[in-house]
């Protein structure tokens, strides 16, 4: 009897298919539904009002601009800090480099709200809190998302075949040329994956901006939250979510995040 028990692939898929339908497809459809409807006198009707409102509202467009700026600067700062770290960790022959890597990843295991609250106290101690709202927000984003940049960079750089670099050096490339012509291009999948993982959350992670800028900086995530909790307008909230989704989708498309023809880089794209 026991031997005869076996699952076909189809059957094994059922839970996951159900999961997908329940927690991915249905919510997405609901968001779409809310985004393109409005409630007038208690009746829900189809409408583009939210869409038009978003692109004609000074407040929303400036919030979008602000989110973009914060996200771009945070991502750039993360990349600048994380690349050397990942490079050194991956390419050096340090013993215990895993321990070093772990130290960088360690903060991720502490509750995120706690970390940001602690950072608020620290910034207050230094004297930045209440005066440097933009800087604080960016410091918070970088602090929070740095591990997400280091990890994919580290994995790609570590898998990099040393013989490529040796070949390039043999053919007369200076250290700088080897880096710009070989190492960096080969690590691009890691860069892209890191950038997407930092850029997107930093457009929406309003806990950071609220806590560290004393609510002086509004980013898109905060706007969405306001529409759901304070303004009681799910339609506009959903519309902003959809617009954000489209932006993220376009960014992914532009950076080639969907390409997975490259077998070697597939793993790096995941992490």
């Amino acid at each position: 009897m026991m031997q005869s028990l076996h699952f076909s692939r189809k059957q094994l898929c059922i839970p996951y298919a159900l999961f997908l339908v329940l927690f991915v497809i249905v919510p997405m459809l609901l968001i779409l539904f809310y985004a393109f409807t409005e409630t007038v006198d208690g009746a829900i009707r189809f409408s583009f009002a939210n869409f038009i409102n978003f692109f004609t509202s000074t407040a929303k467009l400036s919030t979008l601009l602000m989110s973009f700026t914060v996200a771009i600067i945070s991502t750039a700062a993360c990349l600048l800090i994380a690349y050397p770290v990942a490079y050194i960790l991956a390419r050096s022959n340090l013993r215990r480099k895993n321990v070093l890597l772990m130290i960088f990843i360690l903060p991720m295991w502490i509750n995120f709200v706690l970390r940001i609250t602690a950072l608020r106290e620290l910034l207050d101690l230094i004297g930045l809190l209440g005066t440097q709202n933009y800087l604080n927000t960016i410091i918070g984003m970088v602090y929070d998302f740095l591990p997400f940049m280091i990890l994919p960079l580290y994995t790609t750089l570590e898998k990099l075949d040393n013989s490529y670099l040796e070949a390039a050096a043999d053919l007369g490339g200076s250290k700088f040329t080897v880096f710009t012509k070989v190492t960096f291009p080969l690590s691009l999948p890691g860069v892209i994956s890191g950038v997407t993982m930092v850029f997107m959350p930093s457009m929406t992670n309003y806990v950071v901006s609220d806590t560290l800028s004393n609510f002086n900086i509004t980013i898109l995530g905060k706007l969405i939250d306001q529409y759901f909790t304070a303004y009681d307008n799910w339609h506009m909230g959903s519309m902003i979510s959809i617009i954000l989704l489209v932006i993220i989708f376009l960014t992914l498309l532009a950076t080639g995040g969907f390409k997975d023809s490259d077998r070697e880089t597939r793993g790096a794209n995941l992490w």
Partner: protein
Amino acid sequence: MKKIISLALSLCLLLPFVFLLAGCGGKTSQKEVLHVYNWEDYISEPTQNSDGSTENDYVDLIAEFEKEYNVMVEYSTFGTNENMYNELQINPGAYDLVCPSDYMIMKMISENMVEPFTDDFLQNSTYMKYASPYIKQLFEENGWTKYAVAYMWGTMGYVYNPELSDTVEEDLSSWAGLWQEQYASVATIKDSVRDSYFLGVAVVYRDELMALKEQFKKGTIDRHEYNRQVTQIMNRTDEKTIEATKNTLLELKENLYGFEVDSGKQDMVVGRISINFAWSGDAVYTMDDAEPYFNEETGKEEPGIYLNYIVPEECSNIWFDGWVMPKGANVELAQKFIDFLSRPENTVSNMNYIGYTSAIAGDAVFTEMTDWYSEGEEGDLDEEGSPLVPYDLNYFFNGTSDGEYKDGDYIIYVSAESAKRQISAQYPTQEVLDRSAIMQHFDDATNAAVNEMWEEVKGLPIPVWAYIVIAVIAAGIIVVALSYVYKGKRSDPKPKKGYRRVTK
């Protein structure tokens, strides 16, 4: 058979989800159940220890009610009025008693979402006996008596550190004090559209409000008319008012330390900020937390600061949270619960736990207040040798006594300094109430306009460097894109004869 078993097993993988979804149901009890939906931390309950046991510090009102009436209470909590409203929309009939704020009660009444109280309740209930005459009159004038009862109430004002500057008390006797340059980066206001809108409107119409006050002082208009006109001004939502409010709030934003949702209390206590635009209940909490106290464990006096509370001269906002019964509620049981909470001794437990001011008066409450605040009898001197000042609470307590006090007795004697502290936040004076307005519920279109105004206040101004960053990035993207297009054309030569094109 095989198929069936493996199918069943794969379904087993789903069981956790099923249980999760079904987790809410399944309780079978013969007892009547009362579904109460209230703000977090808004009823007296003992502190829970991490191991699940409870401390013996506060009265467990819910448990006592369950015991006395032999019923079950399903108690759940919400975080914002809007969340509560949505929950009621999604689950009509799921709750017997909810506790929204003033404007949400108005909205629910206007949308016909609530059950009226029974005539018996309106005539003979404990609530009607002990609720303050002031509150009852307020409800009567606004036509809410039939549908709602008040739970906690208060005003809005500034909590401030009197040592901030020599003139701080005088400066903050106007709402506009916060706009002064000398108070740059020391103050926070609420990250809440309605409260901040109120603040903005008060400053925009400052002159008009002060002129009204003059008239009232001279006696040209009576108390009633004065209050009516203040309320009318504070509820203006025309385009011009919204625009002016936006500009004045944007101006204020430059001068603020920031906005806050809940952190204002703690920031005041540790001295990070020195002025906070606060609800009176939070003000009491902040002042309690900040002042020096005697630590019984170490036997030492712990340092602290005495903070003051002030309601500026122009006007204030009367806010309250109250109980309403959504359509389909178990009216009988819900009214029993309200009456249970309205007993003065239970009110005292509640006020001890929550720290806000209850709408219920009565002997026990006044005794407790005397206990908290009284510094002596009429004619006594304070520590510095000046006579104590009377703090008159007759307007609130008159007519609610069971015999312990007489009408007109409700005066607490405090030092002049203390009169500016907790007690002034706990119970506003009659004079403050004369200039305090109820903020009406806005209709959908007004709401949208006011929210848009608030978004602009929160989202603007964009610093110049942000535009530069965006411009640089955009230029960068264009350059990279162009170079790709160009390179793509150039560096894709045809393979030589005899070679195949290399594909990835």
